């Protein structure tokens, strides 16, 4: 297990390096001169040359990447050209909001497991058909539009939840109310996916011999369902949860924009529109790194779910 964990950790390093290379290249090979952009339209040739020197833009690309990587591992992500603030500080301020959004949406997504079990215990029933068709709708609904619909109905119409923003601290009535709609907006797609997957996995497993044996020896149905069937359904579900975490992080960009949440995703979009590349670079690397690490954890969790998987 330890060897496997170390190997997976080592395998994640080239991917993470690749993420930094790609992000760096995408933004540095973009058309347009960043020095001109930072200096603005009124900057003189000397000012632009100074900016170029300060940001090492006059050096070869591989040297620039080396400097970027060196700074990155030392926690220096550069400075925002728009706000004169360090990118690291900007991310630190916004990360808790994005993390809260990701965690609460994951909770909504996890509701898909009991729903999938419920559908699988009554295959082809009205409940099953309803759940599965609703989940198909859930996969197809644009999450930014779902967010807007929820705002129209529950915030504008009924006044139950705030229209926008997070209220701090989260552990207050106002704070919790502000979490509900963004979490539903972001979690619904994943919930639908997990419900469908749990259902089909459960249906597959319920026909297996060991389930028949468990029933034959007189185990209560609940025990059969949760201790035998569900546990074996969980590996594909956990894999998808890990992969879906990527969609969740991508979706956070959109959800934060809909609900005006001051998070990392919204920061990325705002910085793109302002062409503040250091901030875009920092937020993209942070989000992608989180995704790679979460998938690493997902891989490592397989052993907990299924001890028969032998690593070496």
């Amino acid at each position, binding site marked *: 297990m330890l060897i496997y964990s170390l190997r997976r950790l080592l395998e994640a390093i*080239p*991917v*993470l390096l*690749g*993420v930094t*290379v*790609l*992000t760096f290249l*995408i*933004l540095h*090979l*973009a*058309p*347009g001169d960043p020095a001109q952009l930072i200096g603005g339209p009124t900057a003189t040739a000397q000012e632009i040359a100074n900016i170029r020197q300060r940001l090492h833009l006059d050096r070869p690309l591989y040297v620039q990447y080396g400097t970027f990587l060196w700074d990155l591992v030392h926690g220096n992500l550069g400075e925002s050209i728009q706000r004169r603030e360090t990118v690291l500080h900007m991310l630190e301020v916004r990360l808790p909001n994005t993390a809260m959004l990701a965690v609460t949406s994951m909770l909504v997504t996890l509701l898909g497991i009991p729903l999938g079990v419920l559908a699988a215990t009554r295959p082809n029933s009205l409940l099953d058909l309803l759940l599965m068709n609703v989940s*198909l*709708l859930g*996969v*197809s*609904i*644009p999450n*930014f*539009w779902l967010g*807007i*619909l929820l*705002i*129209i109905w529950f915030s*504008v119409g009924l006044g139950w939840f705030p*229209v926008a923003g997070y209220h701090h601290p989260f552990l207050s009535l106002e704070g919790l109310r502000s979490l509900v709609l963004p979490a539903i907006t972001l979690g619904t797609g994943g919930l639908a996916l997990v419900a469908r997957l749990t259902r089909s996995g459960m249906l597959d497993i319920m026909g297996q011999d060991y389930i028949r044996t468990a029933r034959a020896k007189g185990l209560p149905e609940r025990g059969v369902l949760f201790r035998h069937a569900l546990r074996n359904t969980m590996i594909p579900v956990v894999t998808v949860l890990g992969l879906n*975490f*990527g*969609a*969740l*992080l*991508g*979706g956070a*960009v*959109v959800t934060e*924009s809909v609900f005006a949440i001051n998070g990392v995703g919204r920061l*990325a*979009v705002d910085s*793109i*529109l302002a062409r503040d*590349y250091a901030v*875009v670079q920092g937020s*993209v690397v942070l*989000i*992608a790194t*989180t*995704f*790679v690490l979460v998938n690493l954890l997902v891989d490592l969790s397989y052993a907990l779910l299924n001890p028969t998987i032998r690593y070496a």
Partner: protein
Amino acid sequence: MSSSAATVEPAARRGSKVLGRLRRSPHFMVGSVLALIVVLGAVFAPLLTRVDPYYQDYAAVLQPPGTPGHLLGTDAFGRDQLSRMLYGARISLTVGVTSVVLGLVAGVLLGLLAGYFRRLDRPIMMVNDVLIAFPGILLAISIVAALGTSLLNVIVAVAIFSVPTFARITRGAVLNVREADYVSSAQAVGSSHARIMLRTILPNILSPLIVYASLRLATSILTAATLSFLGLGAQPPSPEWGAMINQARTYLYSAPYLSIEPGVAIFMTVLAFNLLGDSLRDALDPRSQ
């Protein structure tokens, strides 16, 4: 085994079986009807409405749906919503189809190379893994960040966003059939590598690609709409659905229909292609149900 067995079955018989399964699938029927509505709306937009989608009528701003002459109402500039929705379908379908075709061609070529030539497998799949490591639409967003905000760049971004998955699916399918007898026979008679990849292998791995392309069409339309919603894609006054919802956000209190209507259109289109993709997968591979 299964792939060579599948090729033994005459293509015509297999095709009629698939069609039979599709005809019995309610998901396929609903998906087809929805897709047909969107496609017909896009193609016949000029016949279905006489109003220019860009025409601003300041005497008729924010008219609610059902107003005579404006079935779906008007926006804050007095532009006809129905006309904008119909012309918006053209944009969404064009962006979706173009980006999927571009992503498909590039992804399939990379997947064929990675699956067929062992030496190329590792480098191609490493780059692929890095691309896949970008969560959700973040890769598309980063590409738009570099290229600038425009609808054309959205097509490029969404196409690149689709490449890694097409490449992975193709590579997996190639690995499955690489050792099959008909591939060895083609090699034995001296066919060129390009011919084996494109004429021998590709036709035999089309099923998963067709299924994924139709599902990807849904994702691409959704991603493009999302980018425009974020202000990174189509710019005002374009009647792109995502951009329309973005502009309508100011009127959530006074004119919520401005947000609801284009959203229904995106939802319907995405649902249509998801249903078609799902039912195609079930019909081509009944075991997947």
